[in-house]
């Protein structure tokens, strides 16, 4: 199986991904799943330029769901990046059988509450997180490989699905 990391990160391709995770996991490909970037040639070119040692493919959610199984059996390792928890949920709802997401960076914006130094959530983020968790998908907060992964539910009990 080629998928070695599915990451939620609002910076998409950046230092932690290009330098740290790539040296840790040695991927051959990075899939950036983002509707806005996929439909913007300049943004797609920038993302590819930011990781010159990797093959970067920028696709929208529908395309990612379509190719997901094919990539899973492709030679070499692959990383998948989405910008938001909502995109992660959309990808799963579109049919990609993703077992877990690494929550690597959801930075501060107005209306968001601090979960830790690099994860801030609002009500809509929590709804998406809850929907993912209800589908049995694990959400692990971890910015870099050297950090200990922690379940999002442990850091933010507000995302825990209602079991009643």
């Amino acid at each position, binding site marked *: 199986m080629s998928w070695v990391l599915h990451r939620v990160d609002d910076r998409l391709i950046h*230092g932690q991904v290009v*330098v740290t995770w790539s040296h840790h996991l040695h991927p051959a490909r990075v899939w950036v799943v983002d509707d806005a970037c996929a439909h913007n040639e300049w943004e797609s070119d920038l993302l590819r330029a*930011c990781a010159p040692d990797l093959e970067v493919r920028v696709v929208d959610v529908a395309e990612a769901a379509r190719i997901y199984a094919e990539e899973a059996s492709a030679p070499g390792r692959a990383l998948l990046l989405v910008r938001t928890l909502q995109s992660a949920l959309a990808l799963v709802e579109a049919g990609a059988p993703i077992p877990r997401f690494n929550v690597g960076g959801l930075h*501060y914006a107005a209306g968001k509450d601090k979960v830790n130094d*690099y994860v801030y959530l609002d009500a809509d983020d929590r709804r998406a997180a809850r929907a993912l968790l209800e589908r049995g998908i694990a959400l692990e907060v971890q910015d870099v490989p050297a950090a200990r992964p922690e379940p999002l539910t442990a850091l933010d009990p507000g995302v825990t699905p209602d079991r009643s």
Partner: protein
Amino acid sequence: MSPEPRPGGRDEAAPATVPVPALVVMHGDLAQALLRAVEKVYGSTEGLEALSNEGLSRDALQAGIQQRIDAWPGAGIVCVDFWGSSCHAAAACVARTRDIVVITGCHLGMLLDFMHNRETHGRDALAERMRTKGLESIRLVQGGAS
């Protein structure tokens, strides 16, 4: 564009009517630390500003860069730590709509060269000079007993 200024230090093709400003955008406290080092070596950081990417999404970092450079009197330079970083990506996005040159891989020697030449060089000549000086200063010193 000539990579080096003409003799006499002034780039006649694009003389600086006002000293060139620069914004240093880097991870953690690196930009602030570099400015402190510039102050120690050069004695001033006039014309240099620092911005950290810490805690910022790419969009927020882009907005922060844009806000700083919109206050400049003229064209300037944005120095970032490394190619492929969020600092690079955000600055590259800003460069689509603003008159800036982005320099990646910026280090102390390049900022000192900036300070020495920001009043005598046009922006483009200065950026090219910083790139050249930066590359020239990266060398290997081979150790070991002979």
